[in-house]
């Protein structure tokens, strides 16, 4: 009934797509490096979860979606928000806790929302957004809309009961949902071997009759291709699909993490697969881009990130009189 799809290695790539993917990954990387720096300066507070190393996943998958599709992510979602086209300044202002942020500064790093972009968080209860994503996909089906819902979550989340219930409901109701598991091998400090009896997560699709695939999440072209195939299937069949992206986080879980649970050498080993240089090299080899292109990309991104910071710095704090506004709708 169910099957595990084998995605053939990526083949076609043109300059436009290549530059676009590269730009997005580099923007995310730079934006987050800057965020980390701002965190140490106490400009950003709360939890800050960096996506550095995993950029290929959000970029590759979201590339395959349309503007009408719904996207849900976790607290590690700067990359997804940027890939979704949210403005870097608005995100940065949110992390500064400023009114000009996407959520008036009330959400911070873990809670980015942008209804206009159909970006639904920024959800910080692990696996708490999975059931919602099923409901959004169900609504599309009931309303006979052609948009699909794409839900990102970690391999740690897949151990929660919500994963099981959501997979079963999605399959039972036949709703257009792309479940994307970002398997970065760790849930905080817990390696996957301590959280899953079966570590090849794509095998879990069979328990629900959901077609599944695993892909090298360090290669944005492979991710994009797999996602495109998956999205195509979801859209044409109206059925869910389970895509496992095997990846790695280069940084600590959050800014509070001393990384006692893994060897530096392991991290170094994985860094050799860094998706950004990998794509850069490939595009250069294919002679689709030049050193010049890289230079101007870097410049563009530097400006963009600096403008984001400036925007956030200039932002205003929400007046305390508004503290209880939006607990309920209507005048607060």
């Amino acid at each position, binding site marked *: 009934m169910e099957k595990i799809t084998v995605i053939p290695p990526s083949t076609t790539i043109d300059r436009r797509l290549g530059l676009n993917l590269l730009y997005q990954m580099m923007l995310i990387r730079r934006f987050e490096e800057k965020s980390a720096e701002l965190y140490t300066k106490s400009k950003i507070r709360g939890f800050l979860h960096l996506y550095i190393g995993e950029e290929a996943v959000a970029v590759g998958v979201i590339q395959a979606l349309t503007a009408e599709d719904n996207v849900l992510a976790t607290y590690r979602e700067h990359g997804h928000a940027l890939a979704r086209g949210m403005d870097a300044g608005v995100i940065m202002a949110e992390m500064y806790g400023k009114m000009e942020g996407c959520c008036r500064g009330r959400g911070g790093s873990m809670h980015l929302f942008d*209804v206009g972009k159909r970006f*639904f968080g920024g959800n910080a*209860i692990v696996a*708490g957004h999975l*059931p919602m994503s099923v*409901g*959004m996909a169900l*609504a599309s089906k009931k309303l006979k809309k052609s948009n699909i819902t794409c839900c990102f979550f970690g391999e740690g989340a897949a151990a929660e009961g919500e994963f099981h219930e959501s997979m079963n409901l999605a399959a039972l109701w036949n709703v257009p949902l792309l479940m994307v598991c970002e398997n970065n091998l760790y849930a905080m400090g817990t390696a996957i071997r301590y959280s899953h009896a079966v570590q090849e997560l794509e095998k879990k699709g069979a328990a629900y009759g959901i077609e599944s695939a695993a892909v090298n999440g360090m290669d944005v072209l492979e991710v994009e291709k797999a996602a495109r195939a998956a999205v195509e299937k979801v859209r044409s069949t109206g059925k869910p699909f389970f895509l496992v992206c095997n990846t790695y986080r280069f940084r600590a879980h959050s800014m509070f993490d001393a990384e006692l649970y893994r060897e530096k050498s392991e991290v170094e080993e994985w860094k050799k697969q860094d998706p950004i240089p990998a794509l850069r090299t490939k595009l250069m080899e294919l002679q689709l881009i030049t050193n010049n292109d890289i230079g101007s990309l870097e410049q563009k991104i530097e400006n963009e990130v600096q403008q984001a910071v400036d925007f956030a710095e200039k932002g205003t704090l929400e007046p305390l009189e508004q503290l209880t506004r939006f607990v*309920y709708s209507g005048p607060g």
Partner: protein
Amino acid sequence: MNAGNDHIKLTYREALKQAIREALSKDDRVFLMGEDVGRYGGSFAVTKGLLQEFGPERIMDVPLSESGFVGAGIGAALSGLRPVVEVMTVNFSLLAMDQIVNNAATLLYMSGGQLNVPVVIRMSTGLGRQLAAQHSHSWEPMYAHIPGLIVLSAGTHGDARGMLLTALQSPDPVIIFEYTAMMNLEGTLPGHPETVNITKAGIIKEGKDISVITYGAGVYKSLDAANELSGSGIDAEVIDLRVLRPMDMETVFNSVKKTHRALLVEDAWGSVNIGAEVSARIMENVFYDLDAPVQRLCGAEVPMPYPKHMEDASVPQKEDIVAKLKKMLQHG
């Protein structure tokens, strides 16, 4: 109650059912989802026949997956539908509580006003059928603690039929508590379902000697007690809080200012409950109007025992209310 809307006799169950039928008829975006609402006919036969009338798209049987389907209801509400989610009984609602609290009640605020969650969650609640410790909970107090939720208690036939229709007009999440033990109770209502106010407490019986403030299963019991006492020269006012969050204290304070005495009656466990909140607010706001301390009659703080005599002894009965009122008024 407009002219030409003749009154009819109907059970509490029938009142609930008329509300659901009316809601489904009036608005295509409304659908009901819950365990056994369809083919089984509803665990308390409230929804019997509705599947045949409205079809499986509007009356959705769901698997045992409380977190999953309540979350799906929230997601569907985010996407333009008006789901009515039935959690078969409050006893199972803890499994969905994370979805209700961390998603439904939180998304509007956390997204800076972007995301409305117009979901209505119905739960039957309370004791009275000898269902013992895991099936006799009265958890209104736990939900009333949560900002972002509108919490309603249908203690009368009018509310059993009217609250759902009004709740569906709310842009914010609404919980409606329905009372298992009252299903077969007959009442008289206008022929056609109508919306009711869901912001004010209700004065069930006017009186001048003492305010009996209650909700849910306490309403008819308190009314019976008050009626019984009117013979013996005690004129008690009976107030049905109806809206447990946000509470309408104006009605309560006005009553206490008139009667100078109050008794709070509820089936829920005796600590950190609705009565405690009302008592504290009376203390804080109309202390100097009191002629005597406000008292509570609540459920015994025990996991509900199965035998009838013990179950009966676990919650205030009409006789207990009568005795307590007599005592309080002699004393004053």
